[in-house]
């Protein structure tokens, strides 16, 4: 490439990254119009086509290149499985500042997502998390840095003897994270994300170290320590925030059952759960899991938020359950009234979600189930368009995740893939 073009494209790149940071910096409250998103998406795909030869090969095989693609919906999506076999980067992989791995089973290789920079990733975490878990959307990006940590306004009207709330500054929440710390699991995107959240929170709590918020150490859930900490939260009347994998929560609730423990966390306390069960234990229906939150820690299902994310993405998707009403873009979608579980995930302005009918390969009709395909602008240096293995359904501007696309039993007497390999 002649040096002039290289310089131009270097400039363009730096420019693109900072424009994306600006977009993310606007927060999750303001939509991007289709044309604004489209313009950026097409720039990103052109960038990725030029600099990611593996992605280029894929686009060419689909005959969908920047020359022929006019709309982001046509952008060829990479199946998540490709991350197991290939380093999908727009930069030399040796220059990666971070890499996240999927939790592969022993039989399977794990997928790897390499990062040239974590700026976009970290910027995408905070406003989204805050809007969906904290219920506000007040933060900003300045000079490429996220500033203003968040804190929860105490929604607890409870006054306890001896506690004088009037004199206190912005009330800090108690934070309980049931995942390993990023120091312990540097290859886990979930741990990294939790680390970013913990860093923000620690300033509010003064004197605490981020690692104190993590309750999985050396791969084990520290149930006793968690129990003591939750008692502390109960007694203090402070809003508690519990974050973790569904699997870890179930593990903790089983501990509570065995030890005959339960907690009545202060009103306003909330939880975020994520991840499937990945064959470790039986698949538990959401309603059953959320009833356990109510039973063991006193958090009602209306305050449990599911997070949908994956190693191959830079952006997370949350249920709208706790968002401030004025911000919910789908006021008609009240969730399933029978279950009181919201289930409706909102899509941040720098991303799009499309549901694809696996029978036709085309976009599913609204309301029809299909495979979830994500377009994540924050994935600038890898691949923006990701084909997941999860089933979902469009609901207004948001979507609902229905679970992994596994063919359970064969209809005949053969064995389908998932049965023979065990769930994976």
């Amino acid at each position: 490439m002649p040096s002039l073009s290289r310089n131009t494209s270097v400039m363009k790149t730096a420019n693109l990254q900072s424009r994306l940071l600006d977009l993310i910096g606007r927060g999750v409250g303001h939509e991007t119009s289709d044309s604004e998103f489209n313009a950026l998406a097409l720039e990103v795909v052109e960038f990725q086509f030029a600099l990611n030869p593996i992605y280029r090969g894929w686009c060419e095989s689909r005959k969908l290149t920047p020359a022929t693609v006019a709309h982001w919906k046509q952008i060829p999506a990479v199946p998540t499985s490709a991350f197991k076999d290939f380093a999908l980067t727009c930069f030399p992989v040796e220059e990666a500042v971070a890499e996240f791995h999927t939790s592969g089973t022993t039989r399977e290789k794990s997928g790897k997502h390499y990062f040239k920079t974590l700026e976009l990733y970290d910027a995408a975490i905070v406003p989204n998390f805050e809007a969906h878990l904290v219920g506000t959307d007040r933060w900003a990006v300045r000079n490429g840095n996220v500033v203003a940590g968040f804190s929860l306004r105490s929604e607890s009207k409870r006054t306890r003897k001896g506690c004088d709330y009037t004199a206190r500054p912005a009330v800090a929440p108690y934070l309980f994270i049931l995942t390993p710390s990023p120091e312990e699991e540097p290859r886990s995107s979930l741990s990294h994300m939790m680390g970013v959240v913990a860093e923000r929170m620690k300033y509010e709590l003064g004197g605490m170290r981020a690692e104190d918020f993590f309750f999985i150490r050396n791969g084990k859930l520290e149930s006793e320590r968690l129990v003591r900490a939750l008692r502390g939260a109960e007694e203090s009347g402070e809003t508690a925030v519990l974050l973790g994998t569904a699997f870890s929560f179930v593990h903790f609730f089983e501990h509570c059952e065995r030890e005959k423990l339960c907690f009545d966390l202060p009103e306003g306390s909330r939880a975020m759960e994520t991840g499937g069960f990945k064959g470790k234990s039986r698949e538990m229906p959401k309603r059953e899991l959320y009833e356990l939150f109510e039973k063991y820690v006193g958090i009602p299902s209306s305050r449990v938020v599911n997070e949908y994310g994956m190693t191959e993405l830079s952006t997370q998707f949350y249920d709208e359950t706790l968002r401030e009403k004025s911000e919910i873009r789908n006021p008609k979608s009240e969730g399933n009234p029978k279950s009181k579980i919201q289930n409706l995930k909102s899509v941040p302005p720098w991303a799009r979600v499309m549901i694809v009918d696996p029978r036709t390969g085309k976009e599913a009709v609204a309301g029809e189930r299909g495979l979830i395909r994500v377009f994540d602008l924050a994935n600038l240096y890898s691949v923006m368009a990701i084909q997941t293995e999860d089933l979902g359904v469009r609901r207004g501007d948001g979507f609902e995740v229905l679970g992994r696309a596994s063919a359970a039993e064969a209809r005949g007497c053969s064995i389908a893939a998932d049965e023979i390999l065990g769930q994976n």
Partner: protein
Amino acid sequence: MTITEQIRKLAEHRDRTLAKRSTAEIIEWIAAAADLWRATESKWLERAGREGSVATGFSAEMIRLGLRDFFEGVNRSTLTAWVYGELSGMEERGNGGMGAPRVVTHIFSGNLPNAAFQSLLSGLVVKAANVCKPATEGASGTLALPKSQAGTPVPPNGILQKLFVESLMEVDAELGRCVLFVDWRGGDEATEREVFAASDAIIINGGDEAVESVRRRVPSGVKFLGYGHRVSLACVAREKLTGEALPALAEAAAYDVSIWDQQGCLSPHCIYVEEGGGVSSAEFAEALSVEMERFETKYSRGEISLEEAAAFERIRGAYEFRASQFTGGDACAIKDFAKVFGDEQNRWAVIFENETMWATSCLNRLVFVKPIARLEELPKYLGAADGKISCVGLEASEERREKLVDMFTGFGAERVGSIGKMQRPLLNWRRGALKELVG
């Protein structure tokens, strides 16, 4: 009438009718029914295609083909060879004497009629009354009624088995009434207990869990034959890989993969093509794809659930991505090379991959073609399928056959058949089943 009473009446009817006939008469009866299915323009085949398609999602044409081919193997001479072959010297006992089961209960899971018919026939030829519990269509929980059929009244469970029994009744109503269809929800242990207690033998075709669960609860003194779900594979030896032989071989392989939409335990997931022949594994894959397309045109792949379609797309997409990274070169020389042939609507797919290790298919006509240096090395490439192989389809010279068959039996294969006949086993392929029932 309770189930226990129904079964008691059934058994008494059997004592008066079936038990009093000779084995030859019973064979004649069954063969006459099979004739009805083999007749040109058979109304039974027509109904089975039409009604079965609505219930199972399989296409009407494919159902007719599969059943026609099944009944080709059910005639006087094959029935005679089966029964007398297994029970020679035991005819007296088969005549309702001591040891022969009075009531055989069959539990079917899945939609494939062949296994169910085979099971039912084994009960009839030993002169037992038969209680049949068909699979609940959609019992797997993932098979929703295909969209095209929404609104159509759903026929009762086990429609194909019921049609077969109807044809048996047309030939001889009295004998046909020795079969009773019973339905209960999987997990209804109370009903199961009643039925098991009233049975002398129980035959179950089902998933390993279901088979285990029944095995544990079978009362002592009651015979138990359990057949779990299995997978199959095919092998082509180098000496059989000639340009001349290729089209017929590919056609035969396409049949084995496509019939019953690959849902049978005898359906191959992988086809191993030996290196060093006149045709490479990559070329075989291409020839196979042509035949898969031809088969699809005549006997289309049935409707599948969203979950099945998603699984198909997941596997196909993964391999297509890998294939996109290889734009040329010798498929068989490049490590990890993959090439995908498929129908635009995912009605079939052939995935060539330059990796010998077993890969499990999502079924519904998605098959892997893999090279193998020497067929004798197959055992180390079975991977997740090890211990779960039902049938090996084999195309090899006489000289190599015997040793290869020994090897297959060595890793637990239940049967070795030729390619094209993997799904058309002889009636006696479940060796020892009749002996087990009668002994």
